[in-house]
């Protein structure tokens, strides 16, 4: 049989060439301005990039993100399971929670938690409805900016995670649950062994996005002086007036964090795609 190799000539695409040239020019101009503009103070950026205070703020940002995400996911799973329960009281409580915390701005919530002492000056463990207290603390000493930040971010994150987890659980074919029931598995076993592992495929990608988003959202904590990256940068530029340089320092670290998180997200997604036809 004779071979008939395909060696075709590609059509010219003038539109694409013009657009490409334009985008290239913009990039070159951008690189040029950034390097020659003396107002950017790159030497200051380099000086502060690994400054002890900046690295400390970076640590707080990472700690806040990890803590709020882990607790937020746990809270979200709990709220999602409650929303899918047969009990109207549990459903109602979980619904009220997500409605309230998704419906009010995080900034407002953070300021509220920081000022919780105005509502409950004393916080303690005891018998509710006016009974005696066993242990108690002054709200102002207990609720530090870090505690208020972790509390606010966690509770807000839990409300969003509840919706993500719920969507994940509902994406699992009801037949899966029936097949597991027919084997004699209990509700808890079905959730843990059959439903959640499959829901993960739907839950992981948006959770990764939430994590990346949380890394940046922690900067909101600067309104209550949370000692995280942006707060630290602000404190430094209030002293030396290097506003832009320190914003660049903070941004560079945020970019590092989000890039690392995105890579991690990629591998997690691959791990939970098990059993899918590739």
């Amino acid at each position: 049989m004779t071979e008939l190799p395909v060696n075709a000539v590609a059509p010219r695409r003038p539109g694409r060439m013009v657009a490409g040239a334009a985008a290239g020019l913009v990039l070159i101009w951008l690189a040029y301005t950034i390097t020659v503009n003396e107002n950017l103070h790159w030497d200051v950026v380099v000086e502060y990039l690994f400054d002890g205070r900046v690295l400390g703020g970076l640590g707080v940002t990472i700690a806040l993100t990890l803590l709020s995400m882990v607790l937020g996911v746990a809270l979200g799973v709990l709220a999602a399971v409650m929303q899918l329960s047969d009990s109207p009281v549990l459903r109602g409580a979980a619904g009220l929670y997500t409605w309230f915390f998704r419906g009010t701005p995080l900034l407002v919530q953070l300021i509220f938690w920081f000022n919780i002492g105005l509502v409950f000056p004393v916080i303690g463990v005891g018998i509710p409805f006016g009974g005696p207290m066993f242990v108690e603390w002054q709200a102002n000493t207990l609720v530090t900016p870090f505690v208020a930040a972790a509390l606010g971010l966690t509770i807000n994150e839990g409300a969003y995670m509840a919706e993500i987890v719920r969507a994940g659980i509902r994406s699992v074919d009801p037949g899966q649950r029936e097949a597991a029931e027919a084997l004699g598995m209990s509700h808890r076993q079905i959730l843990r062994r059959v439903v959640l592992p499959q829901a993960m495929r739907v839950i992981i990608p948006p959770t990764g996005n939430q994590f990346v988003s949380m890394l940046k959202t922690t900067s909101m904590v600067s309104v209550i002086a949370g000692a995280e990256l942006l707060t630290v940068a602000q404190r430094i530029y209030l002293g030396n007036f290097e506003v832009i340089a320190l914003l660049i320092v903070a941004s560079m670290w945020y970019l590092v964090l989000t890039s690392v998180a995105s890579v991690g997200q990629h591998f997690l997604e691959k791990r939970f795609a098990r059993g899918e036809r590739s």
Partner: protein
Amino acid sequence: MVRIQSVRKRYGSLEVLKGVSLDVPEGGVVCVVGPSGSGKSTLLRCVNRLETIDSGRIWVDGRLIGFREHGDRLHLLRPDELCEQRQKIGMVFQRFHLFPHMTALQNVMEGPRTVLRASRAAAARQAGELLERVGLADRAHHYPAQLSGGQQQRVAIARSLAMNPKVMLFDEPTSALDPELVQEVLAVMRDLAASGMTMIVVTHEMGFAREAGDHLVFIDDGVIVEEGPPREVLSRPRHERTRAFLGQVL
């Protein structure tokens, strides 16, 4: 082995089972046929209580399904008691419902491991034997998505058998299969019937009903219209509705 007495079931205003009674002796193979929407799948799902019944009684292996009799009142069983009853009732679904995140072997091991708390080694050995029995020993480490429909259904049968059920329920086990894959599943079911398993099979496979079934039940509009030995009912249906239905499917 299975005793169904005057079972009624309604969804809202629609009554799908209007007083159905059926006895399946130990080792008996009962095939249930009927037009879609006749209530035959619902009847099957009532036996392992995937559906609740509105009136009537169902016993499997002498135990009342779903309730406890206490004096002259019935009490609903607790969830853990229901789980225990279901362990002895295997079910095979039209659309297999294998767990997609587990291999064939892991699917078969899941019941013994999670419900019966069997050791990994014991569960794996038993699962291997069962996969061999349904002719899939070489597919043990494949995920469901890598198996054909017929293979998936055979794994699903092995998964049910792993719980050592007293009775097996088949809900249209070959209806979702390509025609050339039907026979491999029916062959496994024939072997199972020959081994003495008590089976209730909702099916459109009249050939299987004729050869492997001891008893044929024709359900239409929520009632048993006609029943008897399969060959007799299939060749000489007495009732007009049975004749009309068989005329369409044969």
